[in-house]
């Protein structure tokens, strides 16, 4: 016993730290399990076919239109943000010379963008796209807002992917007589593809989970944005639409269908889990090479 006390006096600090460290890790992982477990266990039994009905009405509170709108808004945002982000990263990594002043400015602004909270993006999108550009609450206004929001993410992940391509690849390509452009598109980009893709998938995850930036830009209409008549200007991207997250918030706001929120939460959570898994899988493939 006295031996134990002696040991305790000598080692109490180490033991305390050891316990605290494990406790913190258990807490982190425990919180995740509780959140995911709670929502899946409570939510999955509430799922029923009527929640995926093609048309939304006040009886079924269907999330199917929201699912379609999520896909549409995600696609348009990606079409806008991915080329811009990838090209920016190409400029920063492959073209800009050392000591280029523009690079510093671009880095600072990209960092600023990534720190701006989504509600500020929402305000900006509302002021600029909805009011100033007169687009109204529309899919397009929402997509542009989200595109700006995920731009820094795409830029950063692409930059990292480009930097991880060994210089010998570029030198080999130059040595064979290829120009810079050809080297970038034929040699560097293909080898950086997994990293870029992982970043794009993370971006999709952010779009799917976004609410505050969309409430006052894309609006909250619960139907599938439809209409393909380009001549009369009645095109689907001019309609207001809600994504899954906004759908969930609207259910909360109306307060009548709190039970239906469980189902939407399950679908959102499953989407995020799938996206995360795919992203880590691709990133892992990258590091194996």
């Amino acid at each position, binding site marked *: 016993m006295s031996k134990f006390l002696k040991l305790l006096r000598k*080692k109490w*600090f*180490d033991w305390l*730290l*050891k316990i*605290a*460290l*494990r406790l*913190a*890790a258990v*807490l*982190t*992982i425990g*919180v*995740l399990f509780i*959140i*995911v477990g*709670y*929502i899946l266990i409570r939510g999955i039994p509430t799922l029923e076919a009527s929640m995926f009905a093609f048309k939304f009405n006040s009886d079924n509170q269907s999330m199917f239109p929201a699912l379609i709108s999520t896909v549409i808004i995600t696609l348009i945002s990606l079409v806008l943000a991915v080329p*811009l982000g990838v*090209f*920016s990263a190409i*400029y920063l990594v*492959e*073209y800009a010379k050392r000591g280029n002043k*523009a690079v510093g*400015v*671009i880095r600072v*602004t990209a*960092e*600023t*963008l990534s720190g*701006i*909270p989504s*509600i*500020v993006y929402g*305000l*900006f999108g509302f*002021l600029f796209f909805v009011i*100033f550009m007169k687009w109204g609450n529309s899919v397009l206004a929402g997509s542009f807002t989200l595109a*700006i929001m995920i*731009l*820094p993410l795409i830029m950063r992940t692409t930059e990292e992917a480009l930097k991880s391509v060994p210089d010998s690849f570029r030198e080999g390509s130059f040595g064979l007589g290829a120009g*810079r*452009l050809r080297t970038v598109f034929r040699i560097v980009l293909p080898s950086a593809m997994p990293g870029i893709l992982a970043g794009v998938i*993370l971006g999709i*995850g952010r779009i799917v*989970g976004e*609410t*505050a930036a969309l*409430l*006052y830009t894309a609006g909250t209409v619960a139907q599938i944005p439809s209409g393909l008549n380009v001549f009369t200007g009645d095109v689907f991207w001019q309609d207001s639409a809600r994504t899954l*997250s906004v759908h*969930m918030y609207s259910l*909360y706001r109306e307060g009548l269908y709190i039970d239906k929120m469980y189902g939407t939460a399950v679908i*959102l*959570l499953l989407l*995020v*889990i799938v996206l*995360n898994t795919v992203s880590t899988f691709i990133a892992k493939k990258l590091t194996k090479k």
Partner: protein
Amino acid sequence: MKTNTIKNKHYFNKNRVSENIMRLLFFIAALTSVGAVLLICIFLFGNGIPAMAEIGIFKFLTGVQWSPTNVPPSFGILPMILGSIYTTAGAIVVGVPVGILTAVYMARFCDKRIYKCLKPAVELLAGIPSIVYGFFGMTVMVPLVRSFFGVNGSTMLTASVLLGIMILPTIINISESAIRAVPESYYEGALALGASKERSVFFVILPAAKSGVFASVILGTGRAIGETMAVIMVAGNQPRMPQGLLRGVRTMTANIVQEMGYAAGLHREALIATGVVLFVFILIINLSFSLLKRRDK
């Protein structure tokens, strides 16, 4: 032979032209982020500052009464500013110790198998949408607080704990890479001097990774102060001066989202001005983050 060289030359020129066009294109693409920041600043400040001037900047920032629909209306956002600061401070108290300890555990203590579980778990924690966090807070934490303390469950405490959970991944990821970046020789030196593993990590490695850990806390602060959806669902949102941990509170972000839907005229502009104040907070936080990072280099 001659035609061949000419052809080659022609090809070469065409190549050079496309080279230059693409270089310009890449440069323009890179400038979009600059343009976006400029536009955001112009439109936010341009719409918010006139409203502040109309209300009176001092009255706006230090007024304790927010009653936009009264006649005459009063637009004081001090309650919301304090609400944001208090909940964020609470989030830091909850999230930072757990986050840093988890980061230390992940970087220096756990074996590979556990790491392979922990890392994706933290990534998933970062990926869960804030509306889902809010929903969890609303359906689990609010009733818990209610039954535990016997108050209405939508309180500053609930919001702080939820935000503390939400900033965990930010703190863990950045702190972990900062801890990993400390040279191994520091650790070996401490061991060689007879320190135990725990002491070496806490008194040698962690201080060496100090600025990275600080950066993670700053970034977490930015996340917490800008969080909107989750806070709305658990904080109660009463627009009055914060009255304690177990009373409802309204943040700046909640103020904007709650009232933007029906606000008009000066009321709407006052909400945009609230956004401007939030934006200034974020800019200050970003600035200190990049200063810290620069010093690190």
